[in-house]
């Protein structure tokens, strides 16, 4: 009896939790919000890469030529991300 009761109570609780998105009781998050979140993460990663490259250059692990090339590429990519972020507004 205890087993059946526990089974029913737990199953009902789980059903309530997982069914909510189906019955419209929760904000599922729009595509735009999600895209913004992804772009923000990408921007953060790109800025980290730029800093990494600068540190590598400053500590002698990247030649001047490679540094300029890589830095230019990364900054171009960062600008692309910023543009796409602006387009969402």
């Amino acid at each position, binding site marked *: 009896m*205890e*087993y059946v009761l*526990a*089974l029913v109570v*737990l*199953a009902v*609780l*789980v059903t309530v*939790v*997982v*069914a*909510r*998105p*189906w019955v419209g009781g*929760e904000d*599922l*998050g729009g*595509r735009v*919000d*999600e895209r913004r*979140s*992804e772009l*923000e*993460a990408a*921007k*953060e*990663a790109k*800025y*980290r*890469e*730029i*800093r*990494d490259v600068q*540190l*590598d250059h*400053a*500590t*002698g*692990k*990247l*030649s001047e030529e*490679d540094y300029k090339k*890589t830095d230019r590429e990364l*900054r*171009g990519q*960062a*600008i692309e991300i*910023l*543009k796409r972020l602006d387009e969402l507004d």
Partner: protein
Amino acid sequence: MAAVGSACLVVAFLTVIYAAGAGLYAGRTGSRAAAVSGRRAIYCLAGLMLLATAILEAAYLRTDLSFRLVANNSSTDTPTFYKLTAMWSSQAGSLMLWVLLLSLFSSAVLYSTRKSLRDITPWATAVLAVVAAFFLGLMLFFEEARPFATLMPVPAEGNGLNPLLRHPAMMFHPPMLYTGYVGFTIPFAFAVGALITRRTGADWIHATRRFALIAWSFLGFGILLGALWSFAELGWGGYWAWDPVENASLMPWLTGTAFLHSIMIQERRGMLKLWNVSLVIGTFVLALLGTFLVRSGILQSIHAFGESTVGGPFLIFIGIVLVGSVALVITRRTDLRPEAKFDSLASREAVFLLNNLVLVALCAFIFWGTFFPLISEALTGKSESLGPPWFGLVVTPLALVLVLLSGIGPVIAWRRATVANLRRNFAFPVGALVATLLVLIFLTPAAGSGTSLIMFSFVGFTVAVVIQEFWRGSAARRSMTGEPRGVALVRLVGRNRRRYGGYLVHVGIAVMLLGVAASSAFADQQDARLSPGQSMKAGEYTITYRKPTAEILGDQSGTGAPITLGAILDVQRGNRHFVVSPSRNYYPSGDAGPISRFFEGEATSEVVVRWGLLGDFWAAVQPDIEALQGPIQEAESRFADSSGQVQATAIQAIVQSYANNPPPAAFRVIDTPMVVWIWLGGGIVMMGALTALWPGGSGRRRLSSVYAARLGRELERA
């Protein structure tokens, strides 16, 4: 409450089946409701597993012997500390732990990606749910793996916890290992999602890198705790025996190490995509294999706590994961093409690749050595094992190369190293290597071991590299910001935690291997049988057996052992004198007479270790209780039907007779240098891992105004 626990597992199983279905549906149709519902099902799984685990732990704490698991692995006299840990000494309990950890990890990653990776996450949810369903299925459909099975009638007393597991390190060793094994499920699940959706860029790596690092750290710490337990508890004097289950934990750690390095190449240059998904698949399969080896009993090991019927399903599941993953990789091979090529063999990319190859080769050799008994039995009908000397032969040279590469990797240039780069970055470390070599040759006995000499020199090289990196990094920051050196150093590390945390890990690994090399090459181990008053020598120590000890309920380590026999030893080294008291604990057996059972059960060594930075003293004793057989048999025949009080008095008299007329005892004494460096190195590794894992603020806050302004100007021009 066992019924509620069982109900939790049944509902958890149905929930993950639903989560898998919802994930697959969301993946195929893009349904947002299905994706969110699947994610919520995983949260429910975590709640259900927390409730089930709490019920089981509560049963252990109150010694509810109606639970079969509690009766099998605990008892009323098991110390509370060990009652808490007894859950994972059983098969069913450790499977529970697996699913609990998986549910928590899965919930955390799905929460952190709830607003990103819309395409990949549903598939990852499905994979995580299928893995959970497999483990829950084992617990529901295999009698021996049921955590909430009950006993009727309820036994009067339980079997107690295996005495060998009564050590503080055992409180944390299994959960640490399992956290490591389970944690690698996360990058695996997202890699599968990335392959299915053909989004094979670095997105899935960004989302799961932190989880991979957590898994790697816990697995490493768990391995280290196991080594400490082996050294301090098992009484054989070593910390690593190339036992199958030890190896099983080391293999995914090695491939996980390779993965954490090679993803940097994919993030930076878009290379090694195929290699990275292969590594994460391999690491997850090896993690499953590790769990399988412990739980199947297929290979003889101190860790394999008995034969099991879950081995078959485990093997089938591993096979399905492996075949399915490989098939997926093959069908997506065109999406895994690199975006760039290696510019030069003298580059950081090439060194990282070489480091990966060495790590994978190490793993392959260890795999071969571990499974050789099965392979030889299948081919010749006779099981043969390769043993520690074979492992030492193949692992040592590769370990040396790894230490060297861990020094070269951080300072060699990306793309192509020029002569100027090499001169600038390697002059100081190479100088340190040469200086270490000369000091060791002329001022220490290290020249007696070529391997140690090379290892020590490479460690010197690696430490010098890291010191140089910290120095130059802080100097570069100082020149840009004008901050004082100390402030610049702290802020440099704070803003580049992953990089400098990684450097600390390199130093820690090098220091650990230094300890391994020194303690392996220069230890002096001596065995002797001594009577009171006799002496022996080990290394620079002279040890004299002063007198025996014999106690009832006198175990100092708190394991609950009723009888402890031991010895008091006077130890002399030069002018230094100290006294140590190793002992051996005896635990009652369940199937002998009322008196003899106290002498015929399990016994464990309570080793004495005196730690020192340059040398450790280690001693263990094995009392000869054969001499007590006469009194034991006599007491058994006379007092078998007497009251407990009388029997206790008889046991006390027997124990006292050991102290009064001690037979010769067997001693093992080791003068071993620098074992403590292994644990110190482990501490440095953990410090580095914590630095790399330490959460930071948002990119917006961390972005310096200089970058923002420059990027802003370029944005206007673009």
